[in-house]
C-alpha cells in the first residue's frame, strides 16, 4: 500500500513537472509582460515538431535536438514578436490580446495540419531514457525521472536569473514601473524582447520533454492550453514558486483522481482548481495587482 502511494506520488510529480516547464513561460508572459498569450501552446508544439524532425530526419542526438528545437522555435517567433506582440506588451486590453493570439494559434494549427498531417509525431528517446527504470520497489519510465530533473533545473536557473542577475533586476524594474525604468536608462523594449524569447524557449523546451505525456499533433496548440492557463492562474502569474507549487498540486489532484476513480475524468483536477482559486483569488503565490 505504501509503495502504491509512493508510485502515485512519483507519477504526480513527473506530470506536474511537465506542466511546470511549459506553463512557466506563459506565467512570465502574463505576469511580467501582461500578455495573455493563447499561442503559447502553439509555440510549445512547434518545439515538439522541430525536435521530431531533427531526430528522425537529421539524425542528431537527443540533447542537440532539444537545443535546435528551442533555438528554432525562438527564430520562428521573432517575426511574430516584431510585427505583432510588440504592439500589445503591457498596453492594450485583454480582448485585443486574446483575439490576436488565438488567431495566431489557429494559423499555426492550420499550417501544421496541412503541411505535417493530422497524425501525432513521435520524438524518439535515446536508449538511456526509454524503457523502464527499476527503483527497487517499482518500475518507473526512465524518461519521467529525466523530466523531474529538467523541471527542478529550470526552476532553479530561472530563479537565479530573475532574482540574482543584473538582467533580472532590470526586468523587474521594467515591469514594476516601465516609464521610470526608461528614464533611468533601461532599454525596456530590449528587455521585453529578451523575456519574450525566454518564454518561447521555455515553451519549446517543455513541448519536447513533455511529448511523452502530451503527444505532439496539430491540435496540441489548443488541446492543452486550458491546462496551462489554469496552472498560471492557480499559481499566480509571474511567480516561479507559484507555478511550481500549482503544477505539483494540480498534478497530484489529477493523478490521484485517475488512480482512484478514472471514470470521473478531470473532475478532481478542476475541483482542486476551484478550491485553490476560491481560497487564493490572486493565485497561491501571486501578487495583488
Amino acid at each position, binding site marked *: 500500500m505504501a509503495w502504491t502511494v509512493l508510485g502515485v506520488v512519483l507519477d504526480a510529480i513527473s506530470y506536474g513537472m511537465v506542466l511546470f516547464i511549459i506553463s512557466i513561460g506563459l506565467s512570465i508572459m502574463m505576469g511580467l509582460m501582461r500578455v495573455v498569450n493563447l499561442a503559447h501552446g502553439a509555440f510549445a508544439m512547434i518545439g515538439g515538431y522541430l525536435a521530431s524532425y531533427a531526430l528522425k530526419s537529421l539524425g542528431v542526438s537527443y540533447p542537440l535536438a532539444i537545443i535546435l528545437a528551442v533555438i528554432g522555435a525562438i527564430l520562428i517567433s521573432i517575426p511574430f514578436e516584431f510585427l505583432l506582440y510588440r504592439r500589445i506588451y503591457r498596453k492594450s486590453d485583454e480582448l485585443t490580446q486574446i483575439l490576436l493570439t488565438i488567431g495566431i494559434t489557429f494559423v499555426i494549427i492550420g499550417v501544421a495540419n496541412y503541411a505535417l498531417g*493530422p497524425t*501525432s509525431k*513521435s520524438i524518439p528517446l535515446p536508449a538511456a531514457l*526509454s524503457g*523502464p527504470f527499476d527503483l527497487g520497489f517499482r518500475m*518507473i*519510465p526512465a524518461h519521467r525521472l529525466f523530466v523531474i530533473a529538467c523541471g527542478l533545473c529550470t526552476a532553479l536557473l530561472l530563479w537565479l536569473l530573475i532574482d540574482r542577475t543584473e538582467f533580472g533586476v532590470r526586468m523587474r524594474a521594467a515591469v514594476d514601473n516601465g516609464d521610470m525604468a526608461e528614464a533611468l536608462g533601461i532599454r525596456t523594449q530590449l528587455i521585453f524582447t529578451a523575456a519574450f524569447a525566454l518564454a518561447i524557449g521555455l515553451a519549446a523546451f517543455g513541448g519536447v520533454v513533455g511529448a511523452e505525456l502530451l*503527444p505532439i499533433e496539430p491540435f496540441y496548440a489548443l488541446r492543452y492550453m486550458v491546462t496551462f492557463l489554469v496552472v498560471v492562474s492557480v499559481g499566480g502569474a509571474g511567480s516561479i514558486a507559484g507555478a511550481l507549487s500549482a503544477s505539483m498540486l494540480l498534478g497530484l489532484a489529477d493523478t490521484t483522481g485517475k488512480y482512484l476513480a*478514472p471514470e470521473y475524468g478531470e473532475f478532481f483536477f478542476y475541483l482542486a482548481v476551484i478550491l485553490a482559486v476560491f481560497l487564493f483569488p490572486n493565485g497561491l503565490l501571486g501578487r495583488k495587482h
Partner: protein
Amino acid sequence: MTTKFGFAGAAVIAALFATPAHSDVIKVGVIGTMSGPYALFGQNFKHGIEAWVAEHGAKVGDHQVEFIYRDEESPNPAKSKALAQELIVKDKVQYIAGLYFTPDAMAVAPLLSEAKVPMIVMNAATSAIVEKSPYIVRTSFTMWQNTVPAAKVAFAKGAKKVAIAVSDYGPGIDAEAAFKKTFEAEGGKIVEAIRMPLSTTDFGPIMQRIKDSGADMIFTFLPAGPPTLGFVKAYIDNGLKAGGVKLLSTGDLVTEPDLPNIGDSGIGILSTYHYSAAHNSPENKAFLAEMVKVGAKPDDITMASVAAYDGARVIYKMIEATNGQKDPDKALAAVKGMKWVSPRGPVSIDPETRHITQNIYLREVEKKDGKLQNTELQTFEAQPDWGLAKH
C-alpha cells in the same frame, strides 16, 4: 431576362423528352472527416471510393455515378444532420455514405425513411446504429464483432484474471460489455474494469491500478489516434510488459499509420480486427495497388478505406438493382445476403441485421523487411455482429 427564360424553357422541354434511363447522374453524398484531427480517415473514405471507381468505371449501366464529399471534422450530430439534409434537399442525392462517428450516424438515421434514401455506414461502430432505420447498411465493423474473438483468444492463451481498460464512450462501453460477457462465459475472471476519459494522455496511474489488481492480461480499446501510443508506452515503461502482464486489444490500438510511432517496442502486441493491410490475398494486393494509383500513401491505408471500397460496391449493386430509380426497398432487398470476396477476406451482408458478416483475425505486431505490420495468426470465420445477433 428573356434568355434566362429561354434556357429554362429549353430545359423543361428537354426534361419532358428525356427518359430517366439515359445518361442521368446518380448522386451519392459522402459525409466524412475530411479535415481536423481525424482527416486521415476521411482521406481513406475518399481513396477507397476512388479505387473502386477507378476499377469499375464511373457508370453503372447507363447511369453516371457522382460522389459528393462533405466535411464533418468531429463528432457533431447537429452538423451531420444539417449536412445530410442539405445533401438530400439541395443536391438531391440518392444515397448517403461515410459517417465516421457513431453520434453522427445516429443523427442522420431519422431522415432516411422520410427521404427514401439508403445510408451506407463506412465506419461508425456502435451496434445499435443499424437498428435506427431499415435503410441502413454497414460495411465496417462493430466493437462486439471484434471483441468477442478477443475474449476467446484471451482464454485460450491461458489468461485467468483480466483487467479491462477502455475509453469512456459508446464503443468503449460496448467493448467492455462484450469482453466481460464472453470471457466470463468461458470461465475467466475480470478483476478490474477501468473506463478512461477520452482526453486521458497520462496513463501512469491507470497502469499502477492494473498492477495492483493482480491481472495477468490487459484487454483494452482506445479509438485510433494520439493516445493509443501513450497507452502502449505506459504499458511498457511502467514495467508491466517486463512483469509478464500480457496486452490484448482490438486493432484500433495498432492501426497501420500508428505502427511506426509505436516502434519496435510494440512487437508482439496481440490484437483482433477485421482488416490488416498485410492480409495475404490477391484481392488485397490488387486493392493496395489501386489505392496507391489513386494517390493514397501506402502507410496510410486503414480499415476505413476498405470499408469505403466495399461500401462503393454495395452502392453500385443498389443502383444496378433499381436501375437508377429512387426505390430504397428494392435497393435494400438487392444487397441483403449479398456475398463477395473483399480485400479483407470473404464477407456478406447479414439479411437480418444489414451489418457485414466477416472474418475476424488474431494478429501480432511483427517486423517484416524493416517495416512493422500486423501479421495474421488465426482466423475466426464469418463472425456476425455479436451485439445484434440473437445467439
